[in-house]
């Protein structure tokens, strides 16, 4: 499969039928429906999970979608960390299950200590919403194995607390272990340390990023691409990648 071309859902479905990917909804989650749609377009079954549930219903992978869980009132993602469903996610992630945290989901993963660092307000103090160019730095994770290292992709970004911070030792560790998965390309939209847009755990099954792959999965609704306006479907590769990793697991 060419990584530069959209992968038709009809091709993906028969090969990977049966994979079940959970999408957790917290109070204040906004992008759960988009994430579920992305899962279906990639050819898997989307399973809606509720934050107060203790069971993950035997899903094969989990997506923590974007939004403002619990209103972000204490800190972005801080209260969600203690939701019953998150206890199950932490256990499953430590057992190797693929987990993707997008935007607020990334913030939840750092608060849950599944990923290091934290997110603070954008350095320019403004909410930012744009089509963001990224460079794929690690194409070996459960969610990026169908990209290639160094590939440039474009997916939407929209956040207010998107500035990734960690101490220098942690940043050096992330760099040294190849755990920076995506870097902002061209412009750093929030002041993130070392232009980091996404990271992974040491095992490569847990990935968090601020931009939104689930908003770039269908021609006609995504960012501009070489194929034309709104034609970008780079985000779909996240979801086909996890299906590949499940098939080959």
């Amino acid at each position, binding site marked *: 499969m060419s990584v530069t071309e959209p992968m038709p859902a009809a091709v993906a479905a028969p090969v990977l039928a049966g994979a079940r990917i959970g999408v957790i909804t917290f109070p204040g989650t906004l992008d759960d429906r988009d994430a579920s749609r992305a899962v279906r377009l990639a050819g898997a079954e989307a399973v809606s999970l509720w934050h107060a549930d203790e069971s993950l219903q035997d899903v094969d992978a989990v997506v923590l979608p974007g939004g403002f869980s619990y209103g972000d009132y204490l*800190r972005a993602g801080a209260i969600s960390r203690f939701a019953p469903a998150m206890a199950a996610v932490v256990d499953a992630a430590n057992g190797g299950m693929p987990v993707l945290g997008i935007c607020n989901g990334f913030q939840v993963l750092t*608060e849950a200590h599944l990923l*290091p660092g*934290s997110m*603070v307000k*954008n*350095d320019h103090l403004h909410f930012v919403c744009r089509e963001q160019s990224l460079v794929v730095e690690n194409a070996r994770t459960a969610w990026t194995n169908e990209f290639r290292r160094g590939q440039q992709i474009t997916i939407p970004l929209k956040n207010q607390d998107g*500035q990734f*911070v960690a*101490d220098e030792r942690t940043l050096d560790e992330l760099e040294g272990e190849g755990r920076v998965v995506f870097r902002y390309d061209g412009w750093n939209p929030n002041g993130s340390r070392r232009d980091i847009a996404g990271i992974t755990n040491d095992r490569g099954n847990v990935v968090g990023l601020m931009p939104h792959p689930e908003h770039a999965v269908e021609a006609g609704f995504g960012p501009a691409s070489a194929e034309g306006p709104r034609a970008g479907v780079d985000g779909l590769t996240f979801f086909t990648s996890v299906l590949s990793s499940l098939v080959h697991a």
Partner: protein
Amino acid sequence: MGRVVVEVMPKPEILDPQGKAVVGALPRLGFTQFSGVRQGKRFELEVDGEVTPEILAAAREAAATLLSNPVIEDVVSVVDAAAVPGEATGTPVSA
């Protein structure tokens, strides 16, 4: 009724955008004396009875786990309001 006051501040090395916005606004109002502002959080935890050492210990644990994120914030203080002059009544201090 007892009350525990917890104060949390962003770590010194973390850029505090809210404080930065405030320090930018002060001179526009004529306050030119202040060269820096950092904005933190204050929590007031109420209990039905007295603030016992056990309750204070629980408040410290809550401060370290939920009320602050040690990656970006420091817990500055966890105190029994009754033991601090001016905190006991919870009445705002006016200039």
